[in-house]
């Protein structure tokens, strides 16, 4: 039996304390298999970003349990984080794709991807070779030596996806990756994410408001008032 890439149970997050406390997450349950791409949909202030930040190990939940590839990484009933080095966790096991690509402007395309590998301890040569392979897979290898400012929005987003995939993390968290793109490019990015999820057996959570990409998900988690509700999607082939 394959272990879920992400499994969370009863995850809660409270900001502040006393009368001013706000419960952003009120017991979120979620389980995503390797290679699966799921949507996370909800209105503003519903807790999407908080959930993403908890999954990305950049803020600490208040309660519940969180597992990555079967490994307990957070347990609210125990001592919280079960891993000492959260920076290494983010570097090696979680990839991030943002609404804007947020590439490092002073690095060229290859080095933007290779940097993640170098941070993980790979040598320059190996890191750049792997980066080129990913850029090839994402069809932007012809811009490998270009400055990121010379790339179109769609190309930049592909490079950002390549960077997220660099260390072959079991999970990628994508925060509205298609928001700045037109329909055609948005669907292309979703196609790439699905393809990469299959190829690398990576679980991808896509936070989105984008109506045009919602039909592409097989499963969608709706989040409202800090709780998730699962729904089967259309899973339309792109």
């Amino acid at each position, binding site marked *: 039996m394959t272990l879920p890439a992400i499994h969370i149970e009863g995850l809660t997050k409270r900001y502040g304390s006393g009368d001013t406390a706000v419960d952003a997450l009120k017991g979120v349950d979620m389980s995503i298999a390797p290679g699966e791409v799921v949507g996370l949909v909800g209105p503003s202030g519903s807790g999407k970003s908080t959930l*993403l930040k908890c999954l990305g190990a*950049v803020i600490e939940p208040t309660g519940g349990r969180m597992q990555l590839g079967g490994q307990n990484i957070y347990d609210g009933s125990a001592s919280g984080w079960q891993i000492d080095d959260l*920076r*290494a966790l983010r570097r090696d096991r979680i990839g991030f794709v*943002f609404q804007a690509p947020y590439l490092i*402007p*002073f690095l060229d395309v290859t080095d933007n991807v290779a*940097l*993640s590998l170098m941070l993980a301890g790979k040598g320059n040569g190996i890191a750049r070779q792997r980066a080129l392979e990913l850029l090839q897979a994402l069809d932007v290898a012809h811009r490998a030596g270009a400055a990121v400012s010379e790339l179109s929005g769609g190309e930049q987003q592909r490079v950002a996806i390549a960077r997220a995939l660099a260390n072959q993390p079991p999970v990628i968290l994508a*925060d509205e990756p298609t928001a700045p793109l037109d329909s055609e490019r948005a669907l292309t990015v979703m196609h790439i994410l699905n393809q990469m999820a299959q190829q690398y057996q990576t679980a991808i959570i896509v936070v989105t408001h984008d109506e045009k990409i919602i039909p592409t998900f097989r499963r969608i988690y709706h989040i409202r008032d800090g709780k998730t509700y699962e729904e089967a999607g259309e899973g339309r082939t792109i």
Partner: protein
Amino acid sequence: MISLAGRDILHSWGKYVFTGAGLGLLIGVTLSMAGIYRGMVEDARMLLTNSGADLWVVQRDTLGPYAEPSTLHDDSWRGIAGLPGVAATGNVTYLTMQARRGDDDVRVMVVGFEPGHPGEPTNLIAGRPITRSHYEAVADEKTGFLLNEEVRVRRHDYTVVGLTRRMVSASGDPMIFIPLKDAQEAQFLKDNDAIINDRARTAANPGLNRPNVPGLLDAVIASQSANHNVNAVLVQVAPGWDENLVAESIRRWKRLQAYTRAQMEEILIAKLIATSAKQIAMFLVILAIVSGAIVSFIIYTMTLGKIREIAVLKLIGTPNRTIAGMILQEALGLGLAGFIVGKAVATLWAPYFPKYVLLETGDAVSGFLAVMLICTLASIVAIRAALRVDPATAIGG
């Protein structure tokens, strides 16, 4: 591993070049200020070296002849020359004044000397030494005089027959050498109206104008008109003699003050230029603080401009030390660029200063280390700001 700082500098090199150039001009001013101080010290040392003396004999209880006025009779040298250990003596006068050059004037130190004795001009770069007893001069090139030009000192014109280099007073004024007798006249004699006035006063004094003592009035007037004073006697000590012992002997037997080279350096550097040195030191401290504040502000602003990138770097697992290292390296890079520009401009503009500017390698090394230290300290604020960046800010919401 990629050099993030190097890439960032290459990416925005124009900004770094202009910022480095601006900082460099500030560093150039700082290096020049240090050079001005070194130049003052060097001028003082050159003054002593060029005089060719081992001892300076001056009026008792004075710090003469450079730091305080000193007057000696011009025959004092006879008694000094007879003391054991004295190889040579020379009378000298020093007078700082505005010497006329055509319709203009130039600030100089007029030195009266005896040819062939200590105190005569050295470092002759053009022309010849003074050979006549009167109305010839040797001028330092910094005065702007040319060979055969006329220089007016008080009431007389002197022909420039030789030019020297680096013959300056302790305050950096270039020297003009003239024969001792001419210099004594220039320094101590009064103008014609004052002489006539004094003669009339003397003649009106019944104590000095006695009809029954013939020749008394003329003798008194002659003594008033003639001048037999000098400012110092320069002494060369015979080989093998301890200059301290010779100086002590002069102090004891001649009732005069005698300074050795070390004592004279102490007077010039620790007393005469001490206030100027403190002034410059104060200015250097202010410049260091201003430079530090500017570097700090620039680095802080540059870091704030990269907050989003820093958040992303932290989110993808970049260690804090790598981010801190990037900011520190950029600050040091800026300091290095600034230092190179500063050293270059300080070297380029040094010859155009009216007084000597001595840029020492040791000062440049100290300056470089100070710039690096200031840049390191200045980057602390920016590093703290970068380390406080929450990686969560890279994620929206």
